[in-house]
């Protein structure tokens, strides 16, 4: 207990950064992933190709390498300096978006094809067929796997610690300098993560109940 309460400032700062990374990366990943997921089922071949290449390229790259690229490669491109936190958010978003896209695509496949045909038959173009008819139904089917993606994202934020972003993953390092027992610190960090994931699980249960669709 003392380990936690004597260093509350470090814990609070660390987890605050973790949640900032998670929050922004989750939003961007959801938006980008939805677009890429829709591209992968698009009737237009070039769109499908771009979506497929993106998913396969980024998803097959280890997140650490992706972080490396943004932490060390990006500054060499001569683009405006946006800071490591933003770069970490970009890397996490791009990486997680591929999983969101694939999860969503599996959800899209659970929506009967007649739903899309009916939407097209009343004159909705592809974009509105997706956004008004297919995706709302696909999202419902993907709540459990989608939450797994976001739980993974929450934990993946700790990789940013390796790139000068002071989030929860750096707490142990800082506290070991203060002379705290490292194992105890790690157990506290783990416990807080478990609690945070628990909140996500509650959100999942809530959404599953709210969006239950009758067929």
């Amino acid at each position, binding site marked *: 207990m003392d380990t936690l309460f004597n260093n509350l400032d470090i814990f609070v700062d660390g987890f605050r950064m973790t949640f900032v990374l998670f929050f922004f990366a989750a939003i961007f990943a959801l938006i980008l992933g939805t677009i890429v997921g829709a591209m992968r089922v698009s009737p237009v071949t070039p769109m499908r190709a771009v979506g497929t290449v993106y998913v396969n390229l980024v998803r097959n790259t280890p997140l650490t390498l992706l972080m490396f690229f943004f932490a060390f490669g990006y500054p060499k491109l001569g683009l405006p300096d946006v800071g490591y936190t933003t770069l970490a958010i970009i890397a996490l978003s791009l990486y997680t978006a591929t999983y969101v896209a694939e999860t969503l695509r599996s959800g899209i496949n659970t929506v009967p094809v007649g739903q899309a*045909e009916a939407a097209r038959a009343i004159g*909705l173009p592809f974009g509105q067929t997706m956004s008004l008819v297919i995706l709302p139904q696909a999202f419902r089917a993907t709540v459990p796997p989608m939450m797994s993606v976001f739980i993974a994202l929450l934990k993946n934020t700790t990789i940013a610690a390796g790139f000068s972003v002071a989030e929860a993953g750096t707490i142990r390092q800082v506290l070991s300098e203060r002379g705290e027992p490292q194992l105890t610190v790690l157990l506290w960090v783990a416990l807080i993560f478990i609690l945070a994931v628990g909140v996500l699980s509650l959100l999942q249960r809530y959404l599953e109940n709210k969006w239950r669709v009758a067929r």
Partner: protein
Amino acid sequence: MAPTDETNPSASTGSTPISRYETTSNPIVAGRGEPLVVVENVEKHYGDFHALKNINLTVNKGEVVVVIGPSGSGKSTLCRTINRLETISSGEIRIDGTKLPSEGKKLAALRADVGMVFQSFNLFAHKTILENVTLGPMKVRRQKKADAEKAAKVLLERVGIEQQSAKLPAQLSGGQQQRVAIARALAMKPKVMLFDEPTSALDPEMITEVLDVMTQLAAEGMTMIVVTHEMGFARKAADRVVFMADGEIVEDTTPEEFFDHPKSTRAKDFLSKLLTH
């Protein structure tokens, strides 16, 4: 507008604004007899399978054409090519003089003018009955929500579902769902309605309620292409019967001619099988 006009529209005469509600010429019936759907030399292949063979069909405004034939004869495929839910290998399809565009906004705009009713209803499962009917008018026709809902309620009343408008599709019986599907298609004010085996997924007692709505629609002058196994409907409501077998149109004639004096052996064979059961 004077308040009296609102309460007693019949009292208004001549050039008052109310006169636009009194137009007698129904746009559906106007121009009756002109070609609306033209299918020319259409071929369709699924790999090695030749699904449609040199199909030529003209449906005029106000006409009710019933397409019948054995399973696998290509009648559903033909119906689905008319709003390009099914692509064609060669040939041409024109709706009201416009060639079917290949993809994109133009195709979507043309589909809005072609109502379609499916065998499996395909109501939007996550939307209420009312939302199912208003979605197209609001998103495609850009109607205001209030206007779309008002029109939808009139249509739902017409097909006898006005009490259920807040329910989800799964809470309705098959026959009710299919009548909603008809209302949803009508809400777009289509030039032509396609029915792809609308009663094939229904229990016998529900078939009648759907056919009643369709018969009424036919009587009102809607142009209809109906793929069905309901011979009673074909006899009663059709202007023409198109008989298909093995991807070809074998006969294209009046219901009386077709049922009483079929010319081809293929049609005679088909009809004899119907009558013996």
